[in-house]
């Protein structure tokens, strides 16, 4: 079963400052996954990047059948773009 959300080596943050480094994650249909961690761990940065609110600084964010990469974000200023 193809995961509905897939992060592959995600690097995310604000400006040039990376908060999240090299995170892999898969979430399947009907699955509930919690992101847990102390303040500043990168939870909200991760979820905002999944939502397309933040441009990934590196790695791949894939949500449903759409994929966003750093280069695509930079080129199109869009949250998610088709593969």
């Amino acid at each position, binding site marked *: 079963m193809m995961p509905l959300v897939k992060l592959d080596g995600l690097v995310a943050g604000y400006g040039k400052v990376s908060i999240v480094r090299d995170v892999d994650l898969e979430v399947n*249909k*009907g*699955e509930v996954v*919690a992101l847990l961690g102390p303040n500043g761990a990168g939870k909200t940065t991760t979820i905002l990047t999944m939502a397309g609110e933040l441009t990934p600084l590196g790695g791949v964010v894939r949500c449903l059948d759409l994929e966003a990469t750093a280069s695509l974000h930079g080129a199109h200023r869009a949250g998610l773009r088709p593969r």
Partner: protein
Amino acid sequence: MRDLLKSPGPHEPLSPFAESVVDDLGLRGALDRRPNALSLGTIKLAGIARTIIANPGVVLLDEPAAGLDERERRELARVIRQVADRHGIAVVVVEHDMALILNTCDRIVVLDFGQKIADGSPDIVQADERVILAYLGEPIQAEPRAESVTRRRGNQHDAAGEA
């Protein structure tokens, strides 16, 4: 609140799917109340209802239990589990409420300083020494089963029966 759940506009009746979501989430009694007359918990459930009605494949929740009382948190946990089980939606939730997490989630991913330090079932993650050191401190027990939602997949009767 009824108008907030309508698509494409407030003058249209609720769709049959929207009606079913309202019932699933226990919002029938709040439909004809004004938003400023609703509790924070009901407002948050209404937000989740609006999300489901949009028929997403994925729902992302950032600290949905913030500001809720204990009863509202239990209801939120039931709804999150139901969103996944009944509608087949993938849910990612950022939350500090350990009871909600342990009773609701299939998996827990733990981040520390921007890196993933654990990824597994609640039982496995709770016992992970790196997680305990970074975040949990002492092991936190889930709520008693009777007061919680089920984590078992596909057992919708249990989830619905605990409304």
